[in-house]
């Protein structure tokens, strides 16, 4: 252990800093999926969107020299993939879950295909806000570097909540998601609303993906994401489709994901893989606790078929 460092206190500090870092993609993807599921559709293809967002964001950042532009491009790519998901799902007899799996594989494949030339080069990274200026303890200082997307994500949650309750579009999304019959009777185009909601979800997922390559871990390589897109879906269920609870859940997952690297930073390398499996185990555990075979979950949008 480095002299003058925090010693074992470094672990919770690292977890805190790591939680903020690791939770940022969860935050964006889960908020996006929250919107999509509020409209009555589940998008399991977010893993593919996440990876495509990471690759295109990195590539755009490298080619243009601006990380923020990379984020924008990633969002756009997410829009397209989300739109594709919705367009296929609205065809008759098509299974939403299968479409998600297909796009997950498709997105991953295309990302690796086009991403080959970007593995080596280093692209400009996203800026961060320095909340640790007051300390010169290294670990604390680095833990308090907040990336710029994190506060944006936090702010997004109450905005989405407000929109769902107080704007015409937000209420339409909720109507379409809760009762297809009611939406049709009111004359709303269920397909169009879901298309918009899924595309918007894709934008946020793409942005979340760009964070992975442009901030932490901060480079483009295969294996960048392993299941974060999927965990976000479980996260939304755990958060009972409330945007604010999604924030809390994202931080929880971020903390779980930060355990492994945090322990590594103080020299604990045994069981590295097992600690990195913590988020998956946590997700599974949460699902076991919250789901029940007897009844539907409170707050589930009525048109969402997947949760009973």
């Amino acid at each position, binding site marked *: 252990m480095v002299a003058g460092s925090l010693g074992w206190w470094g672990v919770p500090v690292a977890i805190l800093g790591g939680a903020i870092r690791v939770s940022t993609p969860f935050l964006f993807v889960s908020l996006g999926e929250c919107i999509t599921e509020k409209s009555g559709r589940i998008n399991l293809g977010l893993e593919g969107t996440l990876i495509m967002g990471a690759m295109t964001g990195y590539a755009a950042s490298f080619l243009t020299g601006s990380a923020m532009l990379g984020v924008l491009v990633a969002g756009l790519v997410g829009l397209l993939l989300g739109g594709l998901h919705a367009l296929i799902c609205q065809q008759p007899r098509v299974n939403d879950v299968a479409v998600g799996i*297909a*796009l997950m594989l498709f997105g991953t494949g295309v990302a690796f295909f086009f991403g080959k030339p970007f593995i080596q080069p280093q692209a400009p990274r996203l800026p961060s806000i320095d909340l640790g200026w007051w300390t010169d303890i290294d670990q604390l200082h680095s833990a308090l570097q907040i990336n710029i997307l994190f506060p944006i994500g936090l702010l997004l949650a109450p905005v989405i909540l407000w929109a769902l309750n107080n704007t015409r579009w937000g209420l339409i999304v909720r109507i379409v998601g809760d009762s297809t019959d009611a939406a*049709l009777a009111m004359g709303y185009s269920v397909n169009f609303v879901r298309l918009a909601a899924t595309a918007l979800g894709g934008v946020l997922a793409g942005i979340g993906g760009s964070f992975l390559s442009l901030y932490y871990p901060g480079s483009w390589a295969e294996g960048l994401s392993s299941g974060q897109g999927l965990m976000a879906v479980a996260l939304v269920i755990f958060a009972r489709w409330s945007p604010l609870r999604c924030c809390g859940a994202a931080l929880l997952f971020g903390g779980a994901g930060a355990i492994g690297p945090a322990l590594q930073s103080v020299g604990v390398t045994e069981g590295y893989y097992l600690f990195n499996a913590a988020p*998956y185990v946590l997700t599974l555990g949460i699902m076991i606790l919250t789901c029940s075979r007897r009844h539907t979950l409170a707050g589930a949008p009525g048109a969402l078929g997947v949760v009973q």
Partner: protein
Amino acid sequence: MAEQSFAAAAEPAAEPEPAAPSADGGAGAFGEKLRRLGEAAAVPLLALFASLVAFGLFMLALGFNPLEVYELIWRGAFGSYFSWQNTLVRAAPLILTALCTALPARLGLIVIGNEGALVIGGIAAAAAGLAVDTAPPLVIDLVMAAAGMIAGGVWIASVGALRHFRGINETISSLLLAYIAIALMNHLVEGPMRDPSSLNKPSSYAIPDAAMIGPMPGTNVHWGLAFGVIFAILSYVLIERTTFGFAARMVGGNERAARMAGLNVGRLILVVCFLGGAAAGLAGMVEVAAVTGRANASLAVGYGYTGILVAFLARQNALAVIPVAILLGGIGASGGLLQRRLGLPDATVLVIQGIIFVMLLMSEGVVGRLNLFQRTRDG
């Protein structure tokens, strides 16, 4: 108590004039069979054709000659004795991992944790094989197969249990368990099970050479292919021709109706999930016993994920899985040729698979929309 959905209420309320009841049941039944076969094959064939075109356009856009690409894929997959061997070796695990999705799908469960079951099966097989490494080779192989199947079976049976007893979505849970399995494998292979002499790529100790599964006579393809074919045929017979399979199909068709008939839904789910997982676990065992000789990260190279596509393309039919697995094995086999001749990255095969999967689903939609095989409602 009886709230009809809006969609159902949109059907015309009047009963149509009754059609004359079919006096000639035989021809009607045959015609029905033909229609069903046509409907079943139409979607995958359309999908493959559309994928060919889409991929060709993709290659064109990147500056390659699509015809040249098609030719290379053909050559790499089926063009020579050598490429056929390559294809069949790849098809072997695909048949088994596809069953991991196809079997639970008949019960209405969408399981995609094939990769996890394969990995867990491989690890368990390696551990078991090493534990009895002084026994005769046949015994070692049997023990390894049993271990692989049981481990994979339990892994996916858990997914079924979570779904049946806790209502947890099986697609999500199976994928989570897959990631956990891979993490477990990495941990074991780099830690407790590690062979210190494997420096470059952490691996377990090797199983005895004599226990390695050899090639089938006259070919370079190992017996794993035969295991896959037999498993697929037995699965098909189970699902289509036995009372167990009938009950399983009832559950898959409408769980409420199955419950009303008193079927033990939980038991059916657990058994079928176990069988699917056992198939994938066997694939893992075959990878260890026939290909690598030891357990390491090369267990998780994507046979599981490709297996998902095989199952969907075969429309969850255990027999159809065999030719589809050969097709996709061929595409995978051609990857090397594409890489060497045209400099395409190895992810090209993933792109082809992704395109096929997307096209498959769009074909479902197109056929559904065109109502090509729709019957008129009868009186």
